[in-house]
């Protein structure tokens, strides 16, 4: 059974006013357990709106959302249970930090779950280690940390609840390349270690391509495609036509194909590109490139 399933999910903001705006339009989606889903789409394509349905923060205007088989709108479902099952990290999560110490802030979620002191302590330390917050930082005030550190504390706050599904809305927005790398690596590690389902909303095709096992492309509130990275990038032109860019390396391969070189078009990582080019050159009787 799929962990998240939507049926004709539609959401309209400010219904009945002149500001009416359909942000998500008739979305059918099935996400399997253990998947690492990358969500991309233009600004305003409805990504944030879509993911807020998955932990019951907003209710569909029409259509259904099933989490682990249960409709979030049915009466006997406690939204809190859904929220413990699906952890949501918002854009700029550091703005939700409020406790006096980093430790207490990470412990906020687990405490709300009603865990005992020992379990809370174990989870806080484990999660802090996972996101690279050193033990001495735990005693500090979160407001003294740097932006990137704050971001990691906030993400740890949700990870510490060990949700079955972890959804992150642009967790790397506004960070420098190094900070982005670190956070993405930690999310990947969380996914691998806990075997949970992860959804990562991002603007960067490169980031998504590297980690995701499946990519969801949103356009104007609708799903343009939901498939594995090679299958998605094989449709590079379609994706470019809605104003999204495929990874640089995919573009290069597209240009090569345009020039009449018979090479595959679904390449999206540099390593794989190197391998493909070598194979091509060898097949055509020329020497391979040196491994980078």
């Amino acid at each position, binding site marked *: 059974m799929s962990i998240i399933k939507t049926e004709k999910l539609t959401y309209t903001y*400010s219904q*009945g*006013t*002149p*500001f009416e705006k359909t942000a998500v339009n008739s979305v059918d989606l099935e996400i399997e357990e253990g998947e690492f889903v990358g969500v991309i789409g233009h600004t305003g394509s409805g990504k944030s709106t879509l993911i*807020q349905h998955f*932990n019951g*923060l907003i209710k569909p205007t029409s259509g259904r959302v099933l989490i682990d088989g249960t409709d979030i709108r049915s009466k006997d479902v406690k939204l*809190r249970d859904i*929220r*413990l099952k699906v*952890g*949501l*990290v*918002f854009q700029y*999560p550091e*703005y*939700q*930090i*409020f406790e006096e110490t980093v430790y207490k802030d990470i412990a*906020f*979620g687990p405490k*709300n*779950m009603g865990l005992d002191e020992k379990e809370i302590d174990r989870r806080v330390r484990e999660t802090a280690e996972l996101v690279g917050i050193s033990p001495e930082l735990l005693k500090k005030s979160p*407001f003294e940390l740097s932006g990137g550190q704050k971001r990691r504390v906030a993400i740890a*706050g*949700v990870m510490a*609840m060990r949700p079955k599904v972890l959804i992150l809305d642009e967790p790397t927005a506004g960070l420098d390349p190094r900070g982005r790398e670190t956070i993405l690596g930690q999310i990947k590690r969380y996914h691998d270690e806990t075997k949970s389902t992860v959804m990562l909303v991002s603007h960067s095709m490169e980031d998504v391509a590297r980690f995701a096992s499946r990519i969801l492309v949103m356009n104007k509130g609708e799903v343009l495609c939901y498939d594995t990275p090679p299958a998605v990038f094989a449709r590079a032109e379609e994706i470019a036509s809605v104003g999204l860019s495929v990874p640089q390396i995919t573009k290069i391969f597209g240009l090569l194909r345009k020039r009449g070189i018979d090479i595959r078009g679904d390449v999206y990582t540099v390593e794989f590109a190197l391998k493909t080019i070598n194979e091509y050159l060898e097949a055509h009787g020329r020497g391979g490139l040196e491994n980078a």
Partner: protein
Amino acid sequence: MLKDITIGQYFPMDSAVHKLDARFKIVITAVFIVMIFSADSFLSLGLAFLFFVIAFAASKLSPKLILKSMKPIIPIIIFTSVLNIFFIDGVTVFQIWKIRITDNGLITSGYMIIRLIALICGSSLLTYTTSPIVLTDAIEQMMKPLGKLHFPVHELAMMMTIALRFIPTLIEETDKIMSAQKARGADMDSGTLIERAKALVPIIIPLFVSSFRRAEELALAMECRCYNGGEGRTKLKSLVSGGSDYAALCLSLLFLCGVMIIDMGRVVL
């Protein structure tokens, strides 16, 4: 949700009412308020209401909006009218045990309800059709004479502009923070009073932090643009009044006269 608050919200549209000079709109709203409080019979109140209906129709807004703006004041309306019904003396209409309902009580609370509704309708129409920036601009212009008495007109207007500008931002921010804390399992809708008050801490602290941050950023941005108070400052869009503004004002005064004549007629008869 917090988002449902429509009082003080502006709905941009292309209509005769939207285009009126904001200063005139303020004066006309004042005239309307005078109308509903000087009207002393249901007939004259009806006439005042007709004025509102005409203005509302000209604004092209959806009637649903007015109903929506009414929602938050329903408790106040019920409270005051119930008080009036029970505590005003007059001829008993009917009586249950010690509770007596009188004709005067009913009539007074009837007036009260109509006046309150009209008051909200009128002021909502003003804010629905005028952007807050223009509104404070108009207020600043109208208060300018007070500046001669060293009254800080410009500073006050600037403070109002900023406050108004940030209401929707703060509402949005509060909504976001609430969502984020709910996603972390915070429970805000149940528990004892003390528990609920405690549950507000995770919302209020981030809200304060971000308000201070915003204030700092705004102050910096204003200074970078060489803002140094109102002296010598000119406006990009100054308010201009034209024939239609005077016509609208005349119309409202006509209605006011109508209301007064009806009531005077009643007194004379």
